């Protein structure tokens, strides 16, 4: 039963990912992004990381995907939607990815067949305790980064209008 769950989830994720990459229409690829992220969340769940499952869903699927949709709407023009989405070097890219995949494959090989030893149990309490004990500093830092990103984003969007006034 567990295999079925894993295979289906991973199939969903990979197909969605391919969609993101190959969809002609940017809007569709944004949607496929959402689906892919949900697939990943499922995999988290399969891996017993329940808090992460929830987190993924909350942060990525809703936040980022939606955000992208907005930007597509704002920045995109009608012509963009139907223009060719991939530049001319994609065969080279495919070749490179294949080679790298093969490289990965060699690295992954040793890990084959390592069984899980424990049953998954709720990890939220543990994560919380960890966050505030070992990872206190990164926790603070990450908040700092987020604020900075926020200010940056505001600045760019506001600054733009200033730029327009000046010729």
């Amino acid at each position: 039963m567990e295999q079925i769950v894993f295979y289906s989830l991973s199939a969903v994720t990979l197909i969605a990912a391919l969609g993101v990459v190959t969809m002609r229409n940017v809007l569709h690829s944004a949607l496929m992004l959402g689906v892919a992220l949900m697939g990943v969340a499922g995999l988290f769940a399969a891996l017993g990381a329940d808090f992460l499952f929830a987190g993924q869903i909350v942060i990525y699927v809703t936040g980022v995907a939606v955000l992208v949709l907005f930007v597509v709407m704002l920045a995109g023009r009608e012509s963009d939607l139907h223009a060719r989405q991939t530049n001319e070097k994609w065969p080279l890219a495919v070749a490179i990815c294949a080679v790298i995949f093969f490289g990965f494959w060699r690295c992954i090989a040793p890990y084959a067949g390592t069984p899980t030893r424990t049953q998954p149990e709720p990890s939220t309490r543990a994560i919380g305790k960890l966050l505030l004990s070992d990872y206190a500093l990164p926790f603070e830092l990450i908040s700092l980064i987020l604020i900075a990103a926020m200010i940056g984003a505001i600045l760019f969007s506001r600054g733009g209008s200033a730029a327009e006034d000046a010729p």
Partner: protein
Amino acid sequence: MLEHVYWIPLIPLFTSVVILFGGKEGKDSKMPYLGIAAMAWCFLQSSVIFFQTLTGRIPLLEGKEYFLYERIPWLSWGPNLKVHLGVLIDGPAATLLFVVTLVSLLVQIYSLGYMYDDKRKKRYYAFLSFFTAAMLGLVVSSSLLILFAAWELVGVSSYLLIGFWFEKPGPAYAAKKAFITTKLGDCGFYFGLLLLFSYTGTFDLVMLKSHVAQGLLPLEAATAIGIGFLIGAIGKSAQMPLFIWLPDAMEGPTPVSALIHAATMVVAGIYLVARVYFIYTSAPLALGAVAWVGLFTAFLAATMAVTAYDIKKVLAYSTISQLGYMMLGLGVYGYTSALFHLTTHAFFKALLFLGAGSVIHSVHTNDMREMGGLIKRMPATATTMGIATLTIAGMPLLSGWWSKEAVLHAAYSHNWGMWLLGVLTAGLTSFYMCRLFFLTFIGEPRDPHKHQHAHESPATMTGPLWVLAMLSLFAGGLLHYNGLFEHLVHFEVVGHGEHAGGSHAPAFLLPGAAIFVFLLGLGFAYRLYAGSLKTAQGLRDRFEWAADTLERRYYFDDFFLWLVSLSDKLAAACFWIDSRVVDAIFVDGWALVVRAVAAASDFFDDYFVDGAVDGMGTLTQDAGWGLRKLVRGQVQEYLLYVSLAVAVFATFLISR
């Protein structure tokens, strides 16, 4: 008296140093008298020694052939090699001591008058004393090396004395010529010494004599040494090839010629051969050489004397001829006869020179053609020179007769061909001597002005002339009387008795031939030169070529001049080689090589190293340009390259 014999050479040496540095130059300096006093003392000493040894009052040391033999170590090196400073007085040494000191004394007295007006008189006397000291050193020395040292010092003093009037180019050239020619002879002597030492390891005459007696000296070595010493003697005693310097040495003051070039120095060669006679007797070949050299010199010199017009040159040739006789005497085992002739020759030849000196002093010219009939103006000089001319010409019962007769007798006993040539030379001798006498003193004066001016020399000059005249008259007879000289100077040679003589000549042949030849020469000279010179001049014109060769001394002079020019050319060639070849090519050439290498390395440096550096520069620049095209602003391309790199790395990871 005999023990202090080593003082005899030293006293004149010190006096010469004192004279040279003490006192002041100039005409009236007192130094000459100091010189004469010293020489008088030496003469006294040596005459006493001579008479005592002569009369046998001082006997020979038992079993030895010498009277005195003392030595002090002078030089010692190596295992046991030593050179001693010693004194060896035997028969010949005593005789020569007497002769040298006597003649030197007389010459110094004579020079008082002769050099009266010369401002460098002091230096003249210093050189004279120095010469006599060196000569006496040569006579008494027991070691051949010291003998050689004295030999060279004698050469130097003759150089100084010949070149006494060095302002004039003539004496300067003559002095150099004399020294170089004698030096040439000395090389032979030097070689002989080296060879002798390498075989015997000592220079001491007495030790050498015992060595040779024991037969340690192989024959060919003895011959070589003999020849070497002979060459030395030829150089010093002006024998055949190397006689050229003696006629030119007449440039020096006449008393010098009298002392050095008549009585003492030139005799050194004969004395050397006599001193090492034991080597010669053990090397018959060398002895034969001595004989033949002597004979040839005697004959050729006599011929040269016939045509000479300079009075001193005639006497010079005559000296060479008489020296030839002495050499001949030695060569034919006539040891005693040679030394006897040496002694008598010293007296009359010194007299002749001094006489010529007083003639020159009064007429101020050497050329006999400007003289003539001086007997009226200078009776004393004329008579004394007359006696000397008769003595040398071979007038019987005079000293010259005895000694020359002894030499001819020895020659006859050895080889009659030699005797014949010897007698012929004797004839020539009487001819040219009488010619000289007639030209200068007899006949009418050819140069009236000089004739008026001619005057008899002062007493200081004629005194010595009379002493020598008496000696020339009686010395021969006295010494010959009951074999006095024979007893003093003899050298018994096994197999060659002094008078044994191979073929016994009939009693009258030898003396008769000599007298006949003497009269013949006298007659001829009288006929040709007593009266007018027409006939002589006629004869001379007819035999022009002969006169000329004789005049040019058988072209020996030219030969040696050619030799000198050859050596100059050789020297110039050597110097050319040195400066051009060795210096230019070897050294400067080397510089060129180094410079070429430097240029090459410089070129290499510019072209390659610099090139490489610039090359790197341009390379990076081109590469930069090349890569620039890659950077086209496409972010994705950069990512592409990164991932390309990762891909490559992955394959690498896989393949390993």
